[in-house]
C-alpha cells in the first residue's frame, strides 16, 4: 500500500469554536491506482487531500506514506516529501503570475537543488509532453485555462513523484478541456503513477479504479 491512514481526524479553530472536519478516516490507496475522492462540498475531501499531500498535519490519527509515519516528521522532511514524492494539481492552477511557464515548471527542481541546465532540460521535456512547447516563455496570464492546467501538470511531474494529487483539476475548465485534462491524468496513471483526484463530478469518478466517498467527515461505506 502506498497510503494507509488510521482514524485520521482534523479540526480547525474557527470563530472561537473547534470545527471537526475529518472525523476518523481509515483508507488505503494502492500503488499505481487511480483513486477518486468524492462527496458534497464541506464533506472534508479537500482537507483530506491536503493531509495526504503533507501540506497540513492531521490533528489525530496516523498517516503512513510509503511506510513512513508522516505525522512525526520535521518541516524539512515534509518539504522534501512534497518536493520529491508528491505532485500537486490545483483547481485554480496556482501558477506564479510574474514568472514564465518555463520558470513556473522549474520551481520544484529549484527547491530540489537541481542544476540550472538540467532543470531547463527536464522542464522542457514535460512541457512538451503536455503540449506546451510553444508557450515556454509566455506568462500564465497569456494562456487559456486548459493551457494553465497543463503547465501545472508539467510542474507536478518534473521531480517524477510517486503520487499525483489533484484538487478539482477541472473545476475551472469547460467540459471539453476538462476531459482532456482527465485524459492526461489517466495516461500518467497508466505509466505507473498513483493518482488521487478530488472531484464532485460523477463522470470523472466513474473513470477511477477506486472511489472514496466522504460524507460529513467520514467515509460513506454505503456509496
Amino acid at each position, binding site marked *: 500500500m502506498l497510503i494507509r491512514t488510521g482514524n485520521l481526524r482534523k479540526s480547525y479553530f474557527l470563530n472561537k469554536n473547534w470545527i471537526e472536519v475529518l472525523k476518523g478516516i481509515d483508507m488505503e490507496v494502492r500503488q499505481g491506482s487511480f483513486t477518486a475522492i468524492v462527496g458534497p462540498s464541506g464533506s472534508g475531501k*479537500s482537507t483530506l487531500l491536503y493531509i495526504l499531500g503533507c*501540506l497540513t498535519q492531521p490533528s489525530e490519527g496516523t498517516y503512513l506514506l510509503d511506510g513512513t509515519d508522516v505525522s512525526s516528521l520535521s518541516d524539512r522532511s515534509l*518539504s522534501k516529501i*512534497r518536493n*520529491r514524492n508528491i505532485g500537486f494539481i490545483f483547481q485554480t492552477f*496556482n501558477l506564479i503570475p510574474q514568472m514564465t511557464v518555463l520558470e513556473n515548471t522549474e*520551481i520544484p527542481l*529549484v*527547491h530540489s537543488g537541481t542544476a540550472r541546465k538540467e532543470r531547463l532540460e527536464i522542464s522542457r521535456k514535460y512541457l512538451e509532453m503536455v503540449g506546451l512547447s510553444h508557450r515556454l516563455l509566455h506568462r500564465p496570464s497569456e494562456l487559456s485555462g486548459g493551457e494553465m492546467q497543463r503547465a501545472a501538470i508539467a510542474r507536478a511531474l518534473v*521531480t517524477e513523484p510517486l503520487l499525483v494529487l489533484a484538487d478539482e483539476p477541472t473545476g475551472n475548465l469547460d467540459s471539453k478541456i476538462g476531459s482532456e485534462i482527465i485524459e492526461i491524468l489517466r495516461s500518467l496513471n497508466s505509466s505507473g503513477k498513483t493518482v488521487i483526484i478530488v472531484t464532485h463530478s460523477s463522470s470523472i469518478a466513474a473513470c477511477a479504479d477506486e472511489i472514496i466517498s466522504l460524507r460529513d467527515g467520514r467515509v460513506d461505506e454505503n456509496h
Partner: protein
Amino acid sequence: MKTIDIFSLSVKGLNQSRFRSILSAVGIIFGVASVISMLSVGEGAKQEIIDQLRFLGTNNISVNSIRSNSDEGLSLYDSDRIQAALAEFVSVSPVRTVMGEVSYGGIDSICRTMSILPEYFEINGLSLEKGRFFDAADCRDKNMVCVIGAGVKRELFAHREPLGECLFFNGHCYSVVGHLKNINIPKSSVEAIKTHDVNRDIYIPITSAMSGNKDIDTISIRVSAEDKVMAAAGVVKSVLERTHGGTVSYEILIPRELLKQSFETRKTFSIVLVLISGITLLTGGIGIANTMLLNITKRTKEIGIRRALGATKNEILLQFLIESVLLTIAGGLIGIAAGYLSSALIGHYTQWHIIVPTKAVFLAFIISVGVGILSGLYPAFKASELDPETTLRFE
C-alpha cells in the same frame, strides 16, 4: 536548494516591486550618507587637532604674564626658579616680546621682537633655513645678533641674502646670523589658540635687550617626558604661587590640555551627530521592514505555492532575508557614494578639513547589512511561518 538560486529568487522578488524597493531604500541611503559625512567631519577635525598639537608642541607649557597696576607680572627670576625647581626635566626660556618698527635698507616693517635664551629654539622646534642660532656665548657676551623668521626675510630682503646684514630696531643694530624655515601654521590654530604669525618674529638674545629691566612676558617650557607634562605644570604653578602670593599675574597654558578640551567638545558634538544619523538609519530600517511586510502580503500565494512544491521554512526565511539585505546593501552602497559627495561639498563650502575615514566606509557597509538583517528578520520569519494550506485554500 542552491544558494545561488535563493539569491536569484531574491533578486527576482525585488524586481517585482522595483519602484517600491528603491523608495524604501532611500532612508538607508540618507542614513549611511549622513553617518559617513559626520565621521568625515569628525576625522578632519581630529586630524586638525593633531596638527595643532604638533605645531604647539605636545610637551610644552607656556606661562603668560598678566600685567596690572598692582602687579608687575613675571620676571626673569620666575624663569630661573622654574628652571631650578625642575632642573633636568625641562628646558626653560624666558621671553620678552616687543612690537616695533624694524628697518633695513630703507624698508620699514612692524615686527615682533622676541628676546629669548637659545633654549627657546629647541623648545619650540624651530629650524634653520640658513645660518645659525645664537648660543650661550652670544648671550654671555651680549652680542647684538638676531635670527629672523621667514616672513621677515621675505619682506625686508626679498631674494637677497640676509646673513651678515644689519637690522635696525630697538635703537640698535642687530646682525642677522640665521633665518628660519617657513612654519606652516594650521589654519584654524590662529583663532583657536590665539597664535600669531610666528614667521614675522625676530629673535634676539635676552641679555642683549635687557637694560636692568627684568620683566618678561612669557616663560616657554618644554618637558622632556610626555607623561610628566601635567606634573611639571603643577610644580610651575606652586613655584609661581610662592613668589607671587595670591595675585593673579600670570596664566599657565598647556596646549595639550587645551586641545584635549577642544577634542572633547568636538567628540560630544560628533556623538550627537552620529546619534542623529542613527535615528535616520533606524527610520530607514523601519521603512525596509514595512516594505518587506507589504511584499510578503502581496506574495502570500507565491509563498504557499513554493511551500507546496517543496520549499522549506528556512528557504522562505532566507529568501526574504536576502531580499531585505540586498535592498539595504544597495542603499548602503549608494549612501557611501552620497556620503563621499556630501563630505566633499561640506569641505568645499565650509573650508573645514574633511577626511573620509576608510573605517567609516566599512562601518557604513556593516551597518547596512545589519539594518537589512534586523529589519528583514521579522517579515522573513512571518513569511516562513505562513501555513501552506491556509495560503492556498482560503485566500
